[in-house]
């Protein structure tokens, strides 16, 4: 009776996945980003099968081969690295370890940091102070030193590498989550939920986390690049991924001495990192819009009334 134009009943529309696809199609930049990421993930999965051992085959006589020449096979199209290995093949093969390590590190730091931040922001008990001071300690602990210590006590391994990266990146999520919670917990809907008997866990997860998450995801998307690059910095201690395995970060580091003479060695992996980060961010912006009921219309096909 209060509605003027009756809402058409929810006829069997597309499912959640379908709706998301429609939303994705509406934002062309996000669509491009998604396709791009999908390609990278595909490369990560199929890469080794796709290029075989081309990525590790030495070609000492075609060191630093310039890109865009078709003299050699297509796989040399992006040029060759300092040992004459085809950059294209290495990009494809490197995708797996790069994306794997970065995703694991970023995701776990966001998860752990975010959770601790939610707790530290919401509760005023002793442990939230403890969490915060621990975060301060982690923040002031040089990551290189941490890496060294882990290296010496636990030995080099991918898991330890991810642990080091995750720990050093954690405080930013923790503190950001906490800052947002400090404000959100004063909102009335939190009081309302409490008055209904919702426990802290439910309030944090159901009411506060959805509002905190977009910011964390934004940070995480950029952190992807940071983590990839710092992974390569750690590999110089012996903690990072070791040859013959490699990551884009290691490729970039490898080419850093050649920026003036063979720019392509560091450029392509750098570009790959950049594009990944960019795509993730564009997608995270898109996801933010999807998740926000007040913004969602931007992705909808607004049906205007006939006039």
């Amino acid at each position: 009776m209060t509605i003027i134009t009756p809402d058409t009943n929810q006829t069997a529309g597309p499912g959640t996945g379908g709706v998301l696809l429609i939303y994705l199609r509406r934002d062309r930049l996000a669509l491009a980003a998604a396709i791009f990421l999908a390609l990278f993930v595909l490369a990560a999965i199929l890469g080794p099968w796709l290029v075989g051992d081309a990525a590790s085959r030495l070609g000492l006589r075609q060191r630093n081969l310039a890109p865009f020449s078709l003299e050699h096979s297509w796989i040399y199209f992006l040029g060759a690295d300092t040992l004459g290995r085809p950059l294209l093949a290495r990009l494809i093969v490197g995708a797996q370890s790069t994306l794997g390590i970065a995703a694991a590190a970023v995701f776990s730091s966001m998860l752990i940091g975010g959770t601790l931040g939610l707790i530290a922001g919401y509760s005023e008990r002793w442990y939230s102070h403890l969490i915060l001071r621990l975060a301060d300690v982690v923040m002031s602990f040089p990551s290189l030193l941490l890496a060294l210590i882990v290296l010496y006590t636990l030995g080099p391994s991918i898991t330890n590498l991810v642990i080091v990266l995750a720990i050093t990146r954690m405080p930013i999520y923790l503190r950001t989550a906490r800052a947002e919670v400090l404000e959100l917990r004063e909102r009335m809907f939190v009081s309302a939920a409490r008055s209904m008997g919702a426990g802290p866990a439910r309030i944090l997860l159901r009411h506060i986390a959805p509002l905190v998450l977009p910011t964390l995801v934004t940070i995480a998307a950029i952190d992807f690049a940071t983590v990839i690059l710092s992974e390569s910095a750690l590999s110089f201690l012996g903690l990072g991924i070791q040859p013959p395995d490699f990551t884009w970060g290691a490729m970039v580091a490898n080419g850093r001495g050649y920026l003036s003479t063979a720019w392509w060695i560091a450029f392509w992996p750098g570009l790959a990192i950049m594009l990944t980060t960019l795509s993730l961010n564009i997608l995270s912006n898109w996801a933010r819009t999807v998740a926000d009921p007040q913004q969602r219309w931007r992705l909808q096909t607004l049906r205007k009334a006939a006039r």
Partner: protein
Amino acid sequence: MFSYIGRRASHSILSVIGLLTLVFFLTRLTGDPSALYLPLDATAQARAAFAKLNGLDQPIPWQFAEYLKDLLHLDFGQSLRQNRSAMEVALQAFPETLKLAFVAITLSTGLAILVGSLAAARPGSLFDRVASVASLAGASAPDFWVAIVGILVFAVGLEILPTSGTGTWAHWIMPIFVLMLRPFGLLVQVVRGTMLSALASPYIKTARAKGLRRQKIVFGHALRNSLLPVVTVAGDLATSLVNGAVVVESIFGWPGIGKLMIDSIIQRDFAVVQSTILVTATAIFILNIAIDLLYAFIDPRIRY
């Protein structure tokens, strides 16, 4: 308020002490420095003599007790490498880093707030897209890449800036630019995101109904409400810069604490490691207290 600061300060001092203890014992797990200080072909006796000379032959708890005893006299130990008081070394490097970090963070936060707010004010517009993509590209580019290419272009190619070093204001441009990239990119995204939510709030309608100028609505009302995460992230970025901007410091020959810390870690110059951590940790703890106080200032609903 003052009681809060007092409480925080005392907690922080405890944490710093804890941190130093942790660092003391953990660094000793990372190998014996004597091998690093003597030439590779030094004899075992020479190494033993070195260890004895520097007290490295004592059991670690005993070394720690000595360290604490010296701390009481404000003696932070001697640098093995530099033949100087470790604290002197740290304090000499720190201001250089601080200057750099301060300028870079202030500039990037200011710019990011401007750009991010404008982008959020017209989401989906050309400005929004360009600003996002450009800032993100900057943020995810490897910093040394930007630094070296910058030098090759502006110093070697165009000859309008010095390659590196310190001295004139021109020496600041490239280091600051490189340092700003990541904070700027991240902050633009954070500002944009939180501003989008803030701009959809009812109080923005009130502001519009009052006939406020658009800048005032965006930068006064919406911004203030989205400042918490921005301040936090900026603070965290500042922290990571205070901890040292290693790439920039080493490429541009900026005598900062980041490079110093890395060098002393690699060289196992323990006294310097501890002193630098003490200095930076103190700065970081103070910064974090300041940020927490800022929260209450930004949002009156937050009380401690």
